[in-house]
């Protein structure tokens, strides 16, 4: 894990500006939430860190390394998607150990590490299963295990809980939050769900129309919003926040 730094990233698609000079630092071991309405540039930010988008200008640094032009397969980042995107042609264990296989880790070690991770995520007995037979929550755990198996420098989560029902969401939130803390994972957590960002992340960056509106701890964002947009966007989730009294 390492500090990840975006410096004045600009990305345009034809006439549209997706990112208009975004600078953002994710500290080592921190989960930074990127929050905003759809089309605000949060997914483009994540894809820039992953290496699927090359910025028009600006730099991406992992620790001291400039990775701006490095292809995704050489960046060592973990990706977790809303759609799970599990490989249906492989077992759960093979999914989790795929990244290790690409790194030529021996079969025995792959198996061991995959089983450890599955155990840690509470689905230890499912290694032999076909991922399509798992529930949504279980599939998302497999996705997380697969991303963590390569010990990524940064874990990128793109709306990982959007497809799940409220009850499961609450449980996963607690479990996964604890696990990421325990492992000291550096993460970028993209979501449009204010409540989720507030509860899962150490700090939250609120984005709007390709710009950062505010970066701060959940409490700062909520109690001292720097703009009307932030105040309005965040207040929508107020009833669920634990530190709010009514």
């Amino acid at each position, binding site marked *: 894990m390492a500090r990840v730094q975006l410096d004045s990233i600009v990305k345009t698609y034809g006439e549209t500006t997706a990112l208009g000079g975004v600078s953002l630092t994710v500290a080592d071991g921190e989960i930074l939430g990127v929050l905003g309405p759809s089309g605000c540039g949060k997914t483009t930010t994540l894809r820039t860190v*992953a290496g699927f988008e090359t910025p028009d200008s600006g730099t991406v640094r992992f620790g001291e390394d400039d990775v701006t032009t490095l292809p995704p*397969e050489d960046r060592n980042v973990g990706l977790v998607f809303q759609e799970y995107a599990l490989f249906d042609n492989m077992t759960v264990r093979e999914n989790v150990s795929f990244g290790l296989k690409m790194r030529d880790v021996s079969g025995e070690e792959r198996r061991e590490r995959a089983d450890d991770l599955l155990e840690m995520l509470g689905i230890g007995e499912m290694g032999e299963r076909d991922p399509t037979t798992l529930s949504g929550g279980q599939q998302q755990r497999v996705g997380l295990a697969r991303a963590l198996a390569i010990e990524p420098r940064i874990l990128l989560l793109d709306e990982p809980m959007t497809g799940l029902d409220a009850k499961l969401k609450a449980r996963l939130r607690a479990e996964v939050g604890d696990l990421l803390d325990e492992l000291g994972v550096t993460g970028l957590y993209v979501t449009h769900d204010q409540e989720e960002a507030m509860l899962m992340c150490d700090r939250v960056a609120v984005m709007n129309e390709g710009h950062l509106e505010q970066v701060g701890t959940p409490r700062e964002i909520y109690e001292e919003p720097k703009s009307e947009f932030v105040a309005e966007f965040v207040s929508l989730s107020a009833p669920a926040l634990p530190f709010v009294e009514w």
Partner: protein
Amino acid sequence: MSVSRQAGRPGVAAVLFLAVGFLIAPVLLTIAGSFATEWTGALPSGFVTFENWREVLGLAETIGSQRSMGWDTLLSVGGVALAVPSELFFSVGLALGGVLINLVVGVPIAYVVARYEFRGKEWVNAVSVLPLVPGVILGVAFLRAYPNLSGTSFGLIVGYSLLKAPFMVMAVRSEFESMPLQQLEESARSLGASWPRTFLTVIVPNARSGIVAGSIICWTLAAAEFNFSYVVWAKGTQPLALFLQRHISNSTFTKAAAAVSMFFCIVVAITLLLQRVGTHGFTTRRT
């Protein structure tokens, strides 16, 4: 309300049985007829004889066997020769060759059209479906454009693949479109797989059901493609469709039944084979 509920399900079942029965009856009747000596009325009579099959398979010493599929000795042990209908294999192979080209060309086209937005996408899409013209038209155009391929096996293979490519592209494309293609690809890339490796070990195997379906459709249609075969084929081993046509047009009803039944058996065998290769060839999962 409750009446319609009570009647609904048996009603649907009855319609289904009738429809399936209506479709299957001719096939069953034909297979039965292939073992009969006579078929002059509505139903075949004079069971059971294997003479029709022997003639169609080229095992009987009759005039009809000239039209059959030359048996070659594959293996000879102590005077007992193991012969195979080599021309039959060859005919099956012609259609399989077309499928192979369709796989190599059609899967990447389907992938590109499903995955990327680009200028002229609709154009590529339209062109890949364009060969849905009747085989006789493509056959004539084909001979004009490539006179050297006239009458050659290679010409037939290329023609079959051209004619049936749209079915492969459509089947595989809809499969690609039903899965989170971009996310799958990006997951594999982020885990350290290069693009070619991602394509071959993740994307293609995840689309296996569409690929198998496309292969079966392409093979079956290519094997039964009469018009194109008739226009392009000149001499040598007959494509399956022509073999079938000769047996039907110049023979007794019962012998035609045997030829059709044999064709039916081959279709079933190839379908099962493709399905088996498809599910076991792609997966590393032990189930």
